[in-house]
């Protein structure tokens, strides 16, 4: 979280809305531990990371949806699965759960 504070401050001072995504659970192998955080501005700017680069793109999409459409927090799961619902996966075979929410608190 610490590494993304400066970007969050800058975006907010520019009047942009911000979404925060944090890893809240990790099953199996995964590059980043719970607490790994990423921030996305409404302009699509990104700070931090939640994986080794595998799911960041999908998290940006979720974050922008949370900011611009739903306005509600959302728990997203990314990982290897037979379920077609998991469009984006981790090549290492783990599963991560990422909580995405607007920074309105």
């Amino acid at each position, binding site marked *: 979280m*610490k590494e993304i504070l400066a970007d969050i401050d800058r975006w907010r001072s520019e009047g942009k809305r911000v979404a925060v995504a944090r890893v809240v659970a990790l099953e199996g192998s995964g590059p980043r531990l719970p607490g790994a955080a990423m921030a996305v501005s409404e302009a699509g700017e990104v700070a931090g990371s939640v994986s080794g680069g595998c799911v960041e793109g999908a998290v940006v999409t979720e974050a922008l949806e949370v900011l611009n459409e739903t306005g*509600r927090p959302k728990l997203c799961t990314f990982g290897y699965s037979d379920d077609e619902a998991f469009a984006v996966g981790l090549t290492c075979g783990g599963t991560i759960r990422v*909580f995405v929410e607007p920074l309105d*608190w």
Partner: protein
Amino acid sequence: MSELYDVLASAIRSAQPVALAEVVEGPDEALGAKLLVRPGPPVQSLGSLGDADLDRVVTRDALGELAAGLTASRHYGLHGEARARDLTVFIESFAPPPRMIIFGAVDFTAALAKVAKILGYRVTVCDARPVFATAARFPMADDVVVAWPDKHLAEVGHLLGPRDAVCVLTHDPKFDVPAIVAGLTTQVGYLGAMGSRRTTDDRAARLREAGVDDAGLARVMGPIGLDIGARTPEETAVAICAEMIAMRTGKDAPSLRDREGPIHRDLISQERPS
């Protein structure tokens, strides 16, 4: 409205311990509810998970996670019931960085301080000799202190806990015996001492003379580091830090202390055809 975030960000920036608990799974209306907890005294909390009993239970659990520097998901009932699973609460600890105190301003010290910084430690280098203990020689250290090890630990030893480390690199009995004796009076999680097997045996005898018992000696990791054939200061720093990680995670890694034979194998004879 961003009071909670501002308090959190300011605590993180100033390295004050704080835990953020948040409902990440549960009924739609509860999702995203937050409770920020700061240890006391007095304990302070900000925000709410939506129920007073739940807040009380989660505050207690968050303080526990924070003390250990841990981050975890926990399940509760809507009113904090321990056996229920209505809610998943993600409790993230923002604890101040762990500390490493390195005694001895030697070549290995700079390498160890560098690797420890990468791992997130707040690093203090301490040596009684003002010529060697200078900020210019150890720019990567957070603090460089000119003091006798036992004097320094008398001042800061009470701050050390299970996440912290003391590394004694002097391998000079006049410094390292008092440093280890003082280190053993603290709650520090890792206490390592550099030196050959002969130095280590000699030091054990001196520590016993100084009144250290078996339990005390068992806490001292010496020769310091894992048995990975480290040679250079940088490799040795990695071996030391890897030992600290293995100790924290409870993994059975090959510590030099638990093995026998030379620390450094003879590289030349190794290359000879047998």
